[in-house]
């Protein structure tokens, strides 16, 4: 494990006993670390085990086996008092916000400070500072039910940051929000990371959220982490079927099966898709390969944009010419490290 890891999960398994029935393995032998200062997204469909995984980090759940270290401390072996101190260093926000309805906005933000034994004056000062950071200083005396969903989550973020934790766990923090509000909350989470230097572990099922804020992404399926990498790499070269599905959900530069069928009606040639990365002179390389092989190429589908501020995308061509020419073109591209796939 790298020395700069803030969270280190090693061989962690969590099984739940459901009544008298068989045990359900929610998290299955996961080894994963969250580096200091990064935003690590954990993506998966519901039931993939990601919400259980994040609860192992602040010991809301204890693993059946394996170790969980946060800032070098094994949180699975702490006594109640030490665990409470450790949790003050780990903020958490939730899908349903989980605000205290019996307290005001300011009361919610101040509550973790009260729990930590911070004095009244310092509590008030810190609460105002945090509400200012999330842009809700004017709603300090409102009650949670008077706020919109996005505002509630901003209060949740302010509350989670009250004790200045180096780590923030976000469990489906934008899943109950509409797209516009999601954008607003994601932007705030990114600010928490860049401006305050807080390490974020973001649990989500939305690849768009990963694209917007994460540095790295772990893809979970059936309790296991099946793929882990930089967001750019996973977006431009997803290795597993699960990762490919998530990438397709957030990008629209690959033709869907329906679009492919329509393309075939008008384009009888071979359809091939070239993956666009930020490698220099990519288009010149592609053009040269097609030209040298003697195949005609018509651009029929695709898109190029940015992932993590780097060029990324996908272009689908209809190649015309004999089979040997097409094979030569694809071979030449692959020899130069260009990822190209034939559409089936």
């Amino acid at each position, binding site marked *: 494990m790298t020395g700069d890891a803030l969270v280190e999960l090693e061989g962690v398994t969590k099984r739940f006993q459901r009544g008298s029935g068989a045990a359900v393995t929610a998290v299955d032998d996961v080894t994963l670390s969250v580096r200091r200062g990064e935003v690590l997204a954990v993506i998966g469909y519901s039931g993939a085990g990601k919400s259980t995984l994040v609860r192992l980090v602040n010991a*809301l759940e204890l693993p059946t086996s394996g170790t969980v270290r946060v800032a070098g401390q094994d949180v699975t072996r702490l006594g109640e008092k030490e665990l409470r101190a450790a949790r003050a260093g780990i903020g*958490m926000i939730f899908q*349903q916000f989980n*605000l205290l*309805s*019996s307290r005001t906005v300011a009361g919610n933000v101040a509550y973790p400070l009260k*729990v930590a034994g911070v004095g009244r004056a310092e509590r008030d000062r810190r609460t105002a500072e945090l509400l200012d950071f999330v842009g809700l200083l004017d709603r300090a005396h409102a009650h949670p039910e008077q706020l919109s969903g996005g505002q509630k989550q901003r209060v949740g973020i302010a509350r989670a940051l009250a004790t200045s934790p180096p780590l923030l766990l976000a469990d489906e923090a934008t899943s109950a929000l509409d797209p516009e509000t999601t954008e607003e909350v994601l932007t705030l989470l990114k600010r928490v990371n860049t401006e305050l230097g807080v390490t974020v572990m973001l649990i989500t099922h939305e690849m768009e959220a990963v694209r917007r804020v994460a540095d790295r992404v772990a893809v979970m399926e059936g309790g296991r982490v099946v793929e882990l990498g930089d967001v750019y790499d996973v977006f431009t070269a997803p290795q597993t079927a699960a990762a490919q599905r998530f990438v397709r959900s957030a990008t629209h530069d690959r033709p869907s099966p329906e679009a492919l069928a329509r393309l075939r009606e008008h384009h009888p040639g071979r359809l091939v898709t070239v993956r666009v990365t930020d490698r220099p002179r990519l288009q010149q390389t592609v053009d040269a390969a097609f030209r040298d092989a003697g195949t005609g190429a018509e651009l029929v589908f695709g898109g190029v944009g940015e992932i993590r501020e780097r060029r990324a995308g996908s272009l689908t061509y209809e190649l015309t010419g004999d089979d040997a020419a097409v094979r030569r073109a694809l071979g030449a591209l692959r020899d130069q490290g260009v990822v190209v796939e034939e559409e089936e």
Partner: protein
Amino acid sequence: MTVGFFDGFLGSTDVFVRAIGQTLFIVSIAMVVSGLVGLVMGVALYATRPGNLFANRLVFGVLGLLVNVIRPIPFVIFLLAVGPLQSLVVGTTIGTEAVTFAIAIAAGFAVARIVEQSLVGVDPGVVEAARAMGASRAAILFGVVVREGLGPLVLGYTFIFVGIVDMSAQAGLVGGGGLGDYAIQYGSQRYDWGVVYAALVAIVAIVVLGQFLGNRLARAVMRR
């Protein structure tokens, strides 16, 4: 002797006023005592439930059994059965004090269940959030759970108030004093329906007023 419809009632205004006073005494003491006893038992029931903050099978089982057995006993029978305990604590089995004691105990078990149900209704997500903040179990129980459940708790307590007024009237059967006793002794036994209806109006007024205050309080607590 011919008696007018309201003659008996008007002739005993001071008895009527004294009966109202006794009812208010019984009800208010029983409310306070059962409220405290029930709050403690109800919070204990919630907290010791398996999987909860202070999970304890034994305490939860014993308390649950006690509440389940005692709560459904018809009050008139409970009142008779609690006699030996009355003698021990109050020193007598008749009169207003003895009756108040019995009502407070009976109502306490009902309050316990209502407190437990109010707390069970508190969003577990809020409890999880408090745990994630590093709050102690006691702080979560009182600072979060009881506080979040206060609205339904006050409403439930108001509901109990009606039951206590009901029990205070039934206690009239054993000479416990109050409006029930008054309605029997001065009313029905003398065929003086004016007295009975006067008692009825007074009881209704007490119940309506109590419910009004309870609902107002619950609204203030819930701020909705």
